[in-house]
Structure formats: C-alpha cells, structure tokens
C-alpha cells in the first residue's frame, strides 16, 4: 500500500510538471504583456504552439546528422527526469534518492552539452555562435551553482533535496546571512541558466543577440516542440528548486493523506504564480546586457556563492 501510494505520488508529480510547464511560460508572457499595457496572447498559447509544432513536418538541414535528430528527445528526457525528482508539492518522492542536488544540476548539464553539440551540427555560423556563448555562460554558472549547493549542504548537512526541504521547515534554520546570499546567487544563476533577460532574451528576433535561440535556429516541427517544452520545463524546474529550498511551506510529507497533497499542490501553484510574476516584473524592469557583461554578472554570483560558503566556515550559525 505504501509503495503504491508512493508510486502514485511520483507519477502525479511526473505528469504535473510536464502539464504545468507551458502554462507557466504562458503566464509569464501574459504578465509581461500586461505590464507593457498590451493584451498579450492567452495563457494557453504555449500549449497551442507546441501542439501545432508537433503536427508539422520537420524540415531538416541537408547536412544534419543523427545527433541533431536525437538531441531534442535527450534534452527533454533529462530535463523531465530532473524535474520529476525535485519536490514540488510533496517531499519524500519514491525516487528522490536517485539523484541528489549535485546530480540534478549535472543532469541538466548533460542536456546543455547535447544542445551545444546540436548547435554545431549543421555547420552554420549562427549555431556556432550560440553554442560557444552558451558554454561560456555555463562555465561560470555551473561553479556558482555548485558553491550555492555547498552552502545549502553545509547548512542542512545533506545534498538530498527532501532532507534540505525538511530542514528548512524545521525551526532550527532561523534567519541566516549565508542563506540570503545563496538565494540571491541562485536567482542570478537561474536567470542565466534559463536564458532570461538580462543574460539572454527569449523573445528576440535579432540573431546576433541570441544565445539559446541561435543554437536552436535550425530546429523545426516536432524537434522544436520538444526543445520548447524542455525549456519551459527547465524554467519551472528552477522555480520549483528555489521554492522547495527557500519557501518549503505546505510541502506534503510522505503518507500525509489526500488533503495534505491537495494543499501542497495549491501551495505549489501559488508559488509558481508568485515566482512567475516576480520574474516578469524583473524582466520588464531590466534591459538585456552585452554578452561580455554576462561574465561579470555570473562572476558576482560565483563570488556570492563563495562568500556564503566561507561565512558558514566562520560560524555555523551565520
């Protein structure tokens, strides 16, 4: 019985994340449009886009190899697996021990590795520019992320997300400077990882300002649908990650009963809405920065991460 309910919760989580991801993207677009006093497309527009793309034929560049065709599914699969392990509405998921936080981040790194390769596969200059910039951003974002994980792991004594979430809800966590710094750094990394303003612009149509969009320029049809879905999923994943570690309120624990799960789900939706609104506000208020400003932005995140870790070494209560 315990196994069946755990399996059920895990399955619900897996389906929920995929179903909700385009909604979050649509919601953010809607909020951004309203902030710019535009009507904007409906919140369910991303679903329509993905369905339409799925039904269209793929126009494949003559030079594209098998790697180019496999990559969209690989990226979607690794993002999905990572998103399925992060607690969204309940902790203690059946397979939460499969990968700890370090492994989840590395798994997303695998997805990026393949996307960067796909950018170079057709042999166009735009694909190359996107890939080379993406890996440059990643070389700074990944160490920053790891230092943030060090901070959290030192505070909670674990790299396991369920344990971290449980620790953060317990009274012993208190107010800590190191956690505050880590949160700021994590938000900066999340913005860079998801190719949002000010690092990259998801809505740009100027090729030379693109990073992520330049890499996927040659994709079309169902391949593009998978990549778009994976990108939405990744954005949602990072918001879930921040929510589960820094605002783990109303997270249902294992065997908590249906009511607790429903409360957890509602709380999760609220957290997504708040996260999405804040992101839209932030994006409307800032301008995209020049590509060689990004290292400074991410270097700041890296230093904040190191600072947070070192503070913990000075005193475990900071």
């Amino acid at each position, binding site marked *: 019985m315990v196994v069946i309910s755990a399996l059920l919760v895990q399955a619900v989580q897996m389906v929920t994340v995929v179903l909700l991801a385009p909604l979050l993207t649509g919601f953010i677009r809607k909020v951004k449009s309203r902030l710019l006093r535009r009507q904007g497309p409906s919140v369910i527009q991303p679903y329509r886009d993905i369905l339409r793309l799925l039904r*269209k034929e793929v126009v494949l*560049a003559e030079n594209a190899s098998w790697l180019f065709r496999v990559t969209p599914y690989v990226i979607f699969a690794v993002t999905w697996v990572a998103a399925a392990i992060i607690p969204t509405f309940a902790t203690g998921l059946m397979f939460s*021990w499969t990968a700890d936080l370090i492994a989840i981040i590395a798994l997303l790194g695998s997805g990026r590795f393949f996307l960067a390769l796909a950018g170079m596969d057709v042999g166009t200059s*735009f694909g*190359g520019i996107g890939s080379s910039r993406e890996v440059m951003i990643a070389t*700074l974002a990944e*160490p920053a992320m790891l230092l943030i994980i060090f901070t959290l792991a030192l505070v909670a004594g674990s790299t396991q997300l369920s344990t971290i979430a449980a620790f953060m809800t317990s009274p012993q966590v208190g107010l800590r400077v190191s956690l505050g710094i880590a949160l700021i750094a994590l938000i900066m990394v999340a913005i860079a990882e998801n190719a949002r303003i000010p690092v990259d612009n998801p809505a740009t149509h100027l090729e030379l300002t693109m990073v992520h969009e330049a890499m996927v320029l040659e994709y079309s049809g169902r391949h593009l649908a998978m990549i778009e879905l994976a990108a939405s999923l990744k954005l949602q994943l990072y918001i879930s990650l921040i929510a589960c570690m820094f605002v783990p309120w109303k997270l249902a624990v294992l065997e908590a009963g249906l009511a607790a799960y429903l409360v957890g789900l509602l709380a999760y939706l609220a957290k997504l809405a708040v996260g999405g609104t804040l992101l839209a506000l932030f994006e409307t208020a800032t301008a995209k920065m020049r590509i060689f400003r990004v290292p400074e932005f991410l270097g700041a995140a890296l230093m904040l991460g190191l600072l947070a870790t070192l503070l913990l070494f000075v005193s475990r209560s900071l």
Partner: protein
Amino acid sequence: MTPAVVMLLCATAFLGTAILAILAARSDRATQVIYGTSLVVSSIAVATALVQLVAAISPTSASTLTLPLGLPWLGAHFRLDALAAFFLVVINFGGALASLYGLGYGHHEHAPQRVLPFFPAFLAGMNLVVLADDAFTFLLSWEFMSLASWALVMAHHRAAGNRNAGYLYIVMASFGTLALLLAFGLLAGPEGSYDFAVMRATEQTSSTAGIVLVLLLLGAGSKAGLVPLHVWLPLAHPAAPSHVSALMSGVMTKVAVYGFIRVVFDLLGTPAAWSSVVVLLFGGATAVLGILHALMEKDLKRLLAYSTIENIGVIFVSLGLALAFAANGMGLAAALALTAALFHVLNHSFFKSLLFFGAGAVLVATGERDMEKLGGLIHRMPFTSFAFLVGCVAISALPPLNGFASEWLAFQAVLQSPELPQWGLKIIIPAIGGLLALSAALTAACFVKAFGVTFLGRPRTLVAGQAREVDRLSLAAMFVLAALCLLAGILPGIVMDGLAPVTLSLIGARMPVQMGVPWLSIVPITETRSSYNGLLVFLFTAFSASLTAYLVHRFASRALRRAPAWDCGFPEADPATQYTAGSFAQPIRRVFGTLAFQARERVDMPAPGDLRPARLAVVSRDLIWDGLYVPIAGAVGFIAEKLNHLQFLTIRRYLSLVFLALVVLLLVLALWS
C-alpha cells in the same frame, strides 16, 4: 605459483616480446605477432591482478618475492598488495586495449621497427615499477619505463617538433628521477635501507617527511604532469603513435600517481596536515590551467594531452583531501576521498584511452590532427564518432557516465571538510571545490569544441570530406572502452567496493559496502545525506526519451523533409564560414585568457577606401614557460658559455685545477667536522 610470481612472469614475457620484436621487426607478420602476444600477456596480468584485488584473504595481505638480482646485499624485492593490484589492473587493461587497437592501427605504421620493440618494453617497465618493493628496483624500473616511452615518442623523429618534444621529455624525466632518487635517499636514512618494508617500519621526523613530500611532488609530479612541471607532456604524448599516446596519457601518468600514493600514504606514515594544503593547491591549479590550455588548443591530440593534465589535477585534489582527513584521523572521510581519487584514476584510463584511440582513427582516416582542417566526420566515420562522443560525455563529468561518478564522490568528500580542525584547510577546501567545479564546466566546454569542430558541421578540407571508417579491431577497442565508461558510470558501487581493500590497507578505513544498497545506489555516508543512482538515472532517461520519441512519432507527426540549412535566410555554401576551434573558444579566452595567458586581441582595420584586408591578431603567452623555463634555460646557457673555455686549457692548468679542487675539498671537510 603466487600472484607475484605470475605478475613477474608477465613482465618477463613482455621483455621477451620486446627482444623478439627487435629480431623480427622487419618481417611482415611482426605487427600481428607482437601486439597479439602483448594482448594475451596483458589479459593474463589483468586477470591475476583482479583476483589478487578482489579475492585476497585479507586486504592487508600481500604476495612477496625476493630475487637475487640488483644490488648484491639487497636483492630485488617484489610485492603485490591491494594498491599494486589495483594499479596493475589499470596498467594491463590499458595495455591490453592498446594492443588490440595496435593490431589494426599498427598496419599504418611506416617504420614498425621503431615502435614494436619498445611497446612491450614500456608495458614491462610500468608493471615492474608497481611491483617493486625496494627503492633500487623501483628507480631502475622507473627509468626503464621513461626510456622506453622516450623511444616511442621519438618513433616519428623526422616529423617537425618531435625531436624537440623528445629532448624536453628526457630532460624533465631525468629531473624527475633525480628528485625521486633524493627522496628515497632520505627515506633510506643513514643506514641505507632501501627495502620498502624497512622504510614502512621507520617513523620519519616531520622535517624529513616534509622534504620527501616536496621531492615526491617534483618527481612523481613531473611524470604525471602537475603544473608547473607539465610542459613536456602536451608535446611528448601526442608525438607518439596514437595507441602509445593513449598508454602514456591514460596509464603512465597513473604510474606516477601510484608512486606518489605508495610513498606518501604507505611509506611515510601519518601525514602532516599542512602537506595536504600543498597537494590541494597544486592539484587545483593543475586542473584549471590544464583545461584552459586544452580549450585554446587546435591540435586534437594536444588538446587531449592538456586535458590529461586537468584530470591529474582532479586526482591530486582528491588525494590532497584524503591526506587532510587522514592527518586528522577522519578515517571514513579519508577513505571517501581516496576512493574518489582511485576511481578517477580508473575512469580516466578508460576515457582518455578511448579518446586517443578516436584521435588516432581520425589521424588514420584523414592524416590530420588539426581540428581546423576537419569537420563533418560524423557522416563519414559513424562508429568512431559515436565512441568518441561517449568518451567526450564521460570526460565532461556528465551523468550517467563514469566521469561524473568519481567527481560526485570528490564533491561529497569536499562537503566533509567542516569537520576539520585546521582553519587554513577549512577555508581552502571550499575554494578548491569551486575550482573543481570550474574545471568540470570548462571540460564540458572543451569537449563540446573537440567533438563539435572535428566531427560535426561540414568538412573544412577535401581529406575530411573523403575520410573512411577505420578497421574493426580499432573500433572494437574503442567500443569496449565506451561500454566500460557506461558500466562504471551506472554501477559505481561495484568499483567502490573493489577499491575497499586499497583504502583499508593504506588508511585502515573503508567506505560502507555499496552492493547491499537497494537498487544499486551509491551512498557514501548515509542515505539522508546524499545518494546517487547512475543506473536509474540512465534507465529513466533512456526510457523517457524513447517513450517520448515513440509517442511523438506515433500520434503527432513523422513527416520529414530535407532542405538547405536555414541560417536565418543567408545560408553560405563555403565551409569556412563555420565556427572554428579558435572562434569557438574566443568567448572563454576573453573571460579567462586575459588573466591566464595575458591574451590580447589586436584588430587592424583599414580605413574606408583602403583595399588592405582587415586583420585580427591574437597574442597569448604561456606564463609558466616564459616565467620559469626560459630563465632557467637562459641561466644554464649562460653558465655553459662561461665554463666553455675550461675545455681548452693546457695540461699544466688542468693539473693545478685538480690540485686546487683537492685543497678546497679538504678544507671543507676540515671545517665540517
């Protein structure tokens, strides 16, 4: 027959093969015979060493043997314990696959008599280093290994740059052996006991231990490629034939790591805490600088050689962590860090051999090592490119392959550092952890470049467009290694349990048994703290990817049309418009290179109306070469110049010089006592 006898017989068989090769090198079948024999002998050696590692009665038991060779009062001591057995597995497994690859690749060798005799001799040398149980045998075998590999580096001595590489290699190798000689001299003490058993029993004073550690870092570090002693490595490793490059990078650097572990963890006794700081700093610097150099490289084999330097850095960081924990009596954490180091030794031997084999296949198919002249090989060489891709993912420390498993263990060891009492270590270790993460991220960037520029895109030259897939034996060697990269990645628990005897014998502690954990996860400390399951990550990813692909093709659309590339409406037919290795690395060069290489870009833009082409020049310097080696070479040259006229003295002056020297020596002796 004890295992030690079997291993020695294997080493003798390698030597016999070498002699056979000298006699029969010019015959037509020599290549098959020599590599075939090496393959058989290495396979026997792998089996013996594996049995000794896994099935030994107790982890501290060892199989010893003394032969009446070498120094008359000492004899030649050999010993096969858990540590030696593990490294013998690495060496001989690398040897077996290099032989298998050589069976196919060796046919393209235009002067086989320059390679065949030295290949088995090199394997014999590496085996003997690890088996040696006294300083004399160790140094003799070490020097033999160096000379055999030097001969292999010089195999293509007519190619540009190779003689220079060989010269630099032999100078650095001699310097390394000198440092080891002094280290063993100190360890032997005034009685001159060169037997390792005696050294193990003697407790060294802390000053002696400190000097020995520094000498070891110089001696073993110069062979392993620790910064700043790495300069020979990226020149010498690529100069050898590719299967030998694989052996040198994947295996010989590990023999150096073995030498370091043997002396520092086994012979020196309990280490001092400060010693770990030195090792950590050198390791961290090596990791980051090695991979930054690799990123700037255009030559595929040199890129791989620089990446070897990075991996050696990662291994030394883990060894430094193990030293820090062992110095403070934290057995479990030390076992975790040491397991991470040894696991990475094994992993690196897998994927680096694989990548060098792949580079060799590209070299055979196109005659090019320069990535700027390759491209599009994924269409022409599908199997090689698949195996190479597996190697790239593995070396970039991406789950679910093996590189990630050992990096993950290293990060878990870093997270144990708050328990340490020393403040210096507490502050350094998180920073080193950051460097480790930085080097992992840079590695991923580097191998996106290596694979993307070499195998993807469109062919940049005619030869790349006409490349042909290589022979089946070479492919078999690559695919065995690729399969092992996956297996070690999804079943890391087996490897970690296999390493337990080594950590038990060296630091008296081991990690918890992993094979009993449900679902074959690995749990270094406790499950609430951290766990990782490569098998499930692999299965989930593979399953969800195939499920999605199936559903999409079944229910949505499977239509596909080939068309010219879109490229925003301006597709350019010339393959020169693609991103090259240099342009791919440009953003990273701007971010890191301005500091690490003092890289400067100079744009020469002609005025409007001027018909001169615009030029972009990049100037970058190797600061270590310019700052350390050029002054040393200058000083040596200066002294040699000054002493030169001693060559042309009359006999009278020579006699007075001898007399003067005698007087000075006697004076010194008188003042000393």
